[in-house]
C-alpha cells in the first residue's frame, strides 16, 4: 500500500464531492429542520417550561437533535457511498485513474476515507448548529466530553453505510443502489434489535428462513444500531452501553469481512 497514492485519491475525493449540490441541499434541509425544532423549543421553554432545569433541558434537546442529524447522516453516507466510485465510472475517469501505478486497494481506501471525511464534516457542522440552536433556544451550552465521544463513535455506523453503498454501487445503478442500501440499513437495524442479547440456542429455536437470514445479517454485518445507540447515550450524558468488548470484537471481525468483500468487488471489476 502506498500512502502517497491513498493521500492523492483521498484529497481528490474531497475536492470532487464537497461541490455536490445534493450535499448542499441536505445541509440546507437539515438547517431548516434544526431551526424549526430550535424555534419550537424556544417557545415551549418560554411559555411552558420556565421553571425547568435548563442544563437538563439542553441535554435532552441535543438528544432530539442528534436523532435528526443521525438519520440525515445515514442518508448522506448512503448517498456518497453509492456515488463515489459510480461517478468515476460514469464520467469515464475510472480507467484513467487505474491506468496509473495505483492498486485498486489504494484507490478504494482513498475513496472510502475521503467520503468518510466529507460525511463527518457534514455531521460535525450539523451537530455544531444543533448546539448553537439549543443555546439560542434555552440559553444553556450543552458541550461535554460525552458529546465528543458520541460524535466519534457515530463515525462507525457512517463508515459502515459508506462501504455498503460503495459495494452495492459496483453492481447496480445509483438510484437502485441508494434504495438497496437504505433497505439494507433498515434490515440491519431490525436484525440488531431482534437478536441483540439472544444466545445461539435461543436463536436456533423455531428457526425459519427469514429468521435465519436475519440471524446471518446480525452476525455478518457490523451492528450499526448498537454503535448509534452508544453514541446517543454518550451525547445524552448516560453511561456507555453494555457489552462493549464483545461488540468491539464483532465490529472488527465483521468490518474486515465487509471491507474484504468490497475489495474483492472492485478487484474483480472489469473497467
Amino acid at each position, binding site marked *: 500500500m502506498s500512502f*502517497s*497514492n491513498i493521500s*492523492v485519491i483521498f484529497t*481528490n475525493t474531497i*475536492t*470532487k464531492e464537497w*461541490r455536490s449540490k445534493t450535499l448542499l441541499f441536505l445541509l440546507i434541509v437539515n438547517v431548516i429542520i434544526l431551526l424549526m425544532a430550535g424555534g419550537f423549543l424556544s417557545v415551549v421553554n418560554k411559555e411552558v417550561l420556565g421553571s425547568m432545569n435548563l442544563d437538563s433541558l439542553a441535554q435532552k434537546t441535543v438528544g432530539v437533535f442528534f436523532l435528526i442529524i443521525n438519520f440525515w447522516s445515514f442518508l448522506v453516507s448512503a448517498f456518497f457511498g453509492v456515488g463515489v466510485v459510480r461517478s468515476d465510472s460514469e*464520467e*469515464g*475517469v475510472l*480507467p*484513467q*485513474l*487505474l*491506468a*496509473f*501505478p*495505483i*492498486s485498486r486497494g489504494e484507490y478504494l481506501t482513498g475513496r472510502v476515507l475521503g467520503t468518510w471525511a466529507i460525511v463527518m464534516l457534514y455531521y460535525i457542522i450539523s451537530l455544531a448548529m444543533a448546539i448553537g440552536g439549543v443555546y439560542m433556544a434555552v440559553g444553556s451550552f450543552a458541550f461535554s466530553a460525552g458529546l465528543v465521544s458520541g460524535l466519534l463513535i457515530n463515525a462507525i455506523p457512517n463508515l459502515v453505510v459508506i462501504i455498503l453503498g460503495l459495494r452495492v454501487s459496483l453492481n447496480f445503478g445509483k438510484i437502485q443502489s441508494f434504495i438497496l442500501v437504505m433497505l439494507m440499513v433498515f434490515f440491519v437495524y431490525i436484525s440488531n434489535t431482534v437478536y441483540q442479547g439472544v444466545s445461539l440456542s435461543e436463536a436456533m429455536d423455531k428457526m425459519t428462513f427469514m429468521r435465519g437470514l436475519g440471524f446471518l445479517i446480525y452476525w455478518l454485518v457490523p451492528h450499526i444500531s448498537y454503535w448509534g445507540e452508544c453514541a446517543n447515550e454518550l451525547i445524552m450524558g448516560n453511561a456507555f452501553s453494555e457489552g462493549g468488548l464483545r461488540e468491539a470484537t464483532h465490529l472488527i471481525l465483521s468490518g474486515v469481512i465487509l471491507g474484504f468483500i468490497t475489495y474483492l468487488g472492485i478487484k*474483480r471489476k*472489469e*473497467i
Partner: protein
Amino acid sequence: MTNIIEANDVTKLYGKNTALKNFSLTIKEGECFALLGKNGAGKTTFVKSLLGLIHFNEGELKLLGKSVGDKSSRMSVSYLPEKFSFYPYYTLGAVCEFYAKLKGVDSSDIKPQVGAALERLGISDLMNKKVKECSKGQLQRTGLAATLIGDPKLFILDEPYSGLDPIAIKELQDLLSSLAAEGKTIFINSHGLDSVEKVCKNIAILDKGELVVQGEMKSLLGEKNLLDFFYEKVGQ
C-alpha cells in the same frame, strides 16, 4: 533491445464471445507501433488488458518486463484513452498536477513539468480554464500534455486521432514523431490508417481477436499503401 510489451497466447472471453484468441505480440524499446483493426477486432480489449483494467483468461502479458498484475509495471507508462475526460470543475493545470502526483513526480518538480507539458502542446494559456469550458480538441491536448508528465518510457494511445481536426492531427503526428526521435516507445491503437502510416514504423493487424500480421511497415507493404494492404488482410 529490451521488450517493452510482451503478450504470449493471451485469450480473453466475454461470456461465449472471444475478444482475443491466443494473441501474441512483442514490442521493443523505442518502437513506434500501431495496432490496427476494424471496430470490434479486440484492440481496446488488448489495451485494457495491458493496463490491468480487465482480466484476461489465459496467457501471459508483460509491461516493461513485469506482469501486468503488478502495479509497478505501469510506473513508466502513460495512457491516453480515446475520449479523455476529467471532473468538469478542474482547471487544465489542476488536471495535469493531479496526474503528476499520481505518477509520483516530486512536489518541487510538479509546476515546472506541468508548465512544460502544456507549453509543448501549445495550451499553456489555457492553464486556468476549466474542463467543462473546453472543446474536445482542447481536452484531448490536455490529455496528451498529461501523458508527457513524469518522463514515461511508454505511451499507450487509444484512438488518439479520433475526433481531431486536420490541424490537430498534424500537430499530434509531429509530437509523436518527436517523442519517437527521443527514443520513447509509442503504442497506438487505431483504425485511422492515414494518420498512423506517417508516424509508425511497425504495425500489427488484429481481426476477430486474432493476429493477422505483424512486422515492419515498409517490408510488409512493399509497393502498396496501408489502406490497400489492410483491406487485403481483413476487408473480405
